[in-house]
């Protein structure tokens, strides 16, 4: 009758009742096929893992211990904070438990990533950090990770420390700081929520790459393997971060529309303030984000420009060279000329467009004040 019963049985491995036949079999079949397809696509894309969690047994003993040692102080601080808050409000512990369940469900949602042809999942710690603060969010992440490790084989007991540091500590603090900073700058809830979810996700995956690279490198140098793993995460996690950002923004906006009292209670917004606080800096933030993105995309700062040459260079040009057909110089060579000047020009155009787009908003707000 309940979906949860089916999941519980699946998790604990008991025989399914016969009467729940068709839909159960069909969904299990669909799940298995999806899993296989995701796996096959991810394998073809050479992505080291389509999930955030570092699998059980992947870290050697010394690294597992080190990550545990790194995680313990944060979890202890989180528990201390939880006890302090629970003394004032008896409903706080049940709330944190339920938030852990929400994070568990969110981080079990397989979301197809169109650019990579794989499935990935959001982390959910950005949302938790916005609502209950970063320290308590670490406890939430730890609980969700423990349940996933024990009953779903997502992550593991030996890698729990590393997973807590990446998803709990890095994700929570990145999400919380971003949200708070943008709110202080006057960004509206949607923008701040989007950026918080985005950066929480990306911070998680950067930390996961550090943990993975340090754990599996053996005698090889750390940095090259770290870059390889990070680059391999990009096809899934770049769009996944955007999806998580959109999800976080949607959630915060929905809460503000439907239950603003909850946001006030959790001190996400101040009483009496609306979605947008006076002195909005949204246009500035949008412009800065666009400029920053543009800067990252320029060839000078591209992480992959040297290490990962394209198919044109590595295959087509190589074969052509072997057959005595040297490539001609392009008619328009972006490698020549004043690239920095061009980048500034383009940034000015984009910034001008953003300022122009929000001009009416700025003017009307000024009038309202």
């Amino acid at each position, binding site marked *: 009758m309940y979906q949860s019963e089916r999941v519980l049985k699946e998790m604990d491995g008991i025989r399914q009742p016969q009467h729940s036949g068709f839909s159960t079999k069909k969904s299990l079949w669909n*799940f298995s096929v999806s899993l296989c397809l995701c796996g096959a696509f991810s394998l073809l894309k050479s992505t*080291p893992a389509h999930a955030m969690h570092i699998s*059980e047994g992947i870290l050697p003993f010394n690294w597992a211990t080190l990550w545990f040692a790194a995680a313990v102080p944060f979890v202890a601080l989180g528990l201390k904070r939880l*006890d302090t808050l629970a003394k004032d409000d008896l409903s706080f512990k049940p709330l944190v438990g339920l938030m852990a369940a929400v994070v568990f469900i969110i981080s079990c949602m397989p979301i197809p990533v169109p650019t990579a042809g794989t499935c990935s999942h959001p982390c959910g710690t950005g949302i938790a950090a916005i609502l209950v603060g970063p320290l308590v969010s670490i406890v939430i992440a730890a609980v969700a990770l423990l349940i996933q490790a024990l009953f*779903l084989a*997502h992550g593991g007991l030996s890698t729990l420390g590393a997973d807590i540091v990446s998803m709990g500590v890095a994700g929570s603090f990145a999400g919380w700081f971003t949200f708070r900073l943008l709110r202080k700058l006057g960004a509206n809830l949607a923008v701040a929520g989007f950026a918080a979810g985005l950066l929480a996700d990306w911070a998680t995956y950067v930390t996961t790459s550090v943990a993975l690279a340090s754990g599996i490198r053996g005698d090889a140098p750390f940095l090259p393997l770290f870059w390889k793993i990070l680059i391999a995460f990009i096809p899934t996690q770049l769009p996944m971060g955007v999806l998580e950002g959109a999800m976080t923004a*949607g*959630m915060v906006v929905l809460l503000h529309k439907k239950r603003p009292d909850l946001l006030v209670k959790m001190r996400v917004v101040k009483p009496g303030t609306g979605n947008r606080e006076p002195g909005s800096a949204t246009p500035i933030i949008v412009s800065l984000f666009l400029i920053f993105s543009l800067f990252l995309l320029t060839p000078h700062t591209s992480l992959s420009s040297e290490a990962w040459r394209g198919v044109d260079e590595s295959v087509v040009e190589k074969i052509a060279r072997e057959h005595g057909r040297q490539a001609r110089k392009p008619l328009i060579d972006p490698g020549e000329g004043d690239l920095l000047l061009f980048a500034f020009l383009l940034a000015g155009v984009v910034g001008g467009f953003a300022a122009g787009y929000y001009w009416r908003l700025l003017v009307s707000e000024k009038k309202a004040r």
Partner: protein
Amino acid sequence: MHHFTRHAHDTAHPLTGFDPRVKLLSSLALLVMVISCKGFAFPLLVAGVCGGLCLSMGVRLRVLAVRFAEPLFIAAVVLILKLFFAGKAPLFSLHVLGWEMVGHKDGLLEGLLIASRIGGAVSLVALLGFSTSFTDLMTALAWMRVPKGFIEVALFAWRYLFVLFDDAQVVFSAQKNRLGYVGYRRGLRSIGTLAGALVIKAFDNSQTITTAMVQRGYDGSMPLLKHKPFRVAEVAFSVVFVAVMGIMWIL
């Protein structure tokens, strides 16, 4: 009996009757051996023993396959990464689209070691999960002096996980019926709404739960299950088993 507290495994199997503290300690000892061993025979032995015990408990092969799918996929990818991108002694080479990929012998051995560790550790934890209920595990963790606040939050999360999961299913179905998830833009909005609805339900449920619990004497801390005394036979068996595995680990 409510489906959260039900023991969803073969209760007749001797392993399920073992003291959870003994199981947890033995599993942790074996886990340390698996992740610190230098060869891949020992983790594979642990994987074989634990997999066999899971099957003997009545766990279906399909359930095991689903449980192992993700870790084994990761193990396969790590093996491939190590084979082609680590090591110095060439073993074979492949020509893919004009790109020469060289497999290395030492890389293969390193990859096999990591893959076998993953297999061994995952089967060990899977056996622990299949043979022990969550409540028993939390009680064992409390006995190991894991902070009570953590245990309480974990118990709350486990208790209401499936309630929220059902709620998520209901909201998802309602969204689908109202043309949610049509296109990426609307899909994103639908996912955000779903997450928001879950958070609202979590808040509301936490208030209801607290009210109900306070009426039953809740003062901020939850009583946990009391332990039965250790049984000598179980402890002795576990010590011998771990010692035998330890000798194999040394060998």
